[in-house]
C-alpha cells in the first residue's frame, strides 16, 4: 500500500480459537500491584 504501513495485522479475533487456557501470568504479580495492564503480557499457549 502506498499510504498505509500496517505495524500489526488483525490478531485479536484469531485468539478466540485457541484462547482461554489460563496458563498465562496473573497480571498483578509481575510488577505493578496498583494498575492493571493486561495488554503487556504474553500468551503462553504454544499449541
Amino acid at each position: 500500500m502506498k499510504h498505509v504501513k500496517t505495524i500489526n495485522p488483525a490478531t485479536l479475533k484469531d485468539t478466540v480459537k485457541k484462547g482461554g487456557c489460563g496458563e498465562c501470568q496473573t497480571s498483578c504479580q509481575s510488577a505493578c500491584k496498583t494498575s492493571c495492564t493486561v495488554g503487556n503480557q504474553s500468551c503462553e499457549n504454544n499449541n
Partner: protein
Amino acid sequence: MIHQYKNNGLNIVIDVNSGAIHVVDDIVYDVIEIYEENDRDTIISKLENKYVNEEIIEVLDEIQELIDAKQLFTADEYEPLIKAFNQRQPVVKALCLHIAHDCNLGCMYCFAEEGEYHGRRALMSLEVGMKAIDFVIKNSGSRKNIEIDFFGGEPLMNFDVVKEIVRYGREQEKIHNKLFRFTITTNGVLLDDEIKDFINKEMNNVVLSIDGRKEVNDKMRPTRNKKGSYDLIIDKFIDLAESRNQDKYYVRGTFTHHNTDFSEDVLHLAELGFKQISVEPVVAEDNEDYALKISDLPKLYEEYDKLALEMIKRHGTENDFNFFHYMVDLKQGPCVYKRLSGCGSGTEYLAVTPWGDLYPCHQFVGIDEYLMGNVDDGITRDDIKEEFMGCSVYTKEKCKNCWAKFYCSGGCVANSYKFKGDLNETYDLGCDLQKKRIECAIMIKSSLSQI
C-alpha cells in the same frame, strides 16, 4: 471502533476490535476521521481543497482494502464470548502471600499503611503458608503454572518462613505436577548475600522498591526514624540486578505530585545500570498532599512522551532499558478472553493474610465486606467470587466505548472500589494515564518499525 492519534511525527490508527495497528499518511488520517459519517462523494468534496482528487480516491480504495481484510472498522463481536467464558468454573492459579504485616520503612503512600493493612502487625506462620500452598494446589484444577508472590509489608522481615514455604512448594509441585513460580517484593533494607543467593535460586521474579533519585526516594520512603532509605539499599539493588544478569527483576518506583518530572527518576535508575524499570503513578485519596491531580496531567503526558523518545534513542545501544508500562506484545499478546476478563482478582488471584484469611487481592485486604474465606475452609463467600467474575469491560459503562479496553481490560477493580465504591466503575485519573501509556507504547513500536 477506531482510535487515531499523532505522536513523534507519526499518524497512528488503531482498529480496536481487530487489534490491527497502522501508520498512515496525512490523507488517510484525515479520511479515516470522517469516513464513518460520510459517503465517498462527500469525503472527496470535504477534502478537495486540501488534497488532489486522484489521491483521495486512491486512499479511499486502500481503506476499502483494509476493511475487506478486516483490519479497519471491524465490529466488536466479543460480548457473547465473555458470557460463555464466565460460565466456566474458575481455578485459583495465583496467590499473594502477605508474609509480613509489618515493615521497617514508613513509606508515605503505602496502601498497607506502613505494612499493617488497617489491622494489627503480624507475621505469617509456616503452618498458614503451607496451608496456602495446599489450598492453591487443591483449587488450581489442571493448571500447571502457579504463581506465589511473597508480599507485605516487608517479606524479608519473615524470611525464614519464606524459605520454608518455598521448600514445601518445591516438594509439593513434584507430587502434584505443578510448577510454582515464586516472586518476592522487597524494600531491600534487610537484603544480604545469603538472601540474594536464595532469591536468585528460587525466585522467578523479584520486585525491588525504589522511587528513583535519592531526594525523591527519601522524601516518600523514610525509615521508621525518619531517615532516608536510598543509601541503605541502592548498592544492594545494583548488585542483585547484576547477579540476575539484568533480567527477571524490576526496580519499581512510585511517582507522586511531588515528582511529576518522573522521567528523571526513570533515567536516574537507567543511569545506575538497571535494565528492568517500572515507575508508576501513586494511587491516593485527593486529600493527600502527594496525590496526583487532574492539573498534573499535561505535565505527566509530557513526561511519558519524553521518556518514550529517550527509549527510542537508546534502543539497541548499551544504554537501552525496559520500561514496564511500555511493554506491549502486539503479536503474541494475551487472548481476547484474558483481555476481556481482566486481572483475575477474586477468582484466579487471591491474597492471603498472615493469619490465613482470603481476600480478592492485596488491595482489598482489611476490608471486612470482602473477606472471602480462609486457608482452612477455602472460599466460603462464593457471592464475592461471582461478583468479581461478573466484572468485564462490558459491565463497565465507561469501558464499553473506550478504545483502550483490550489493553487495560477494564483497569484495576481495587482502584474502582477505592474511588467510586463500585467494582464496575472506573478510576478516571488512572484511565487517563493508562491511555497515554498505551499510546506511547504503540508509538515506540511504530517508530522502531520505521527504522
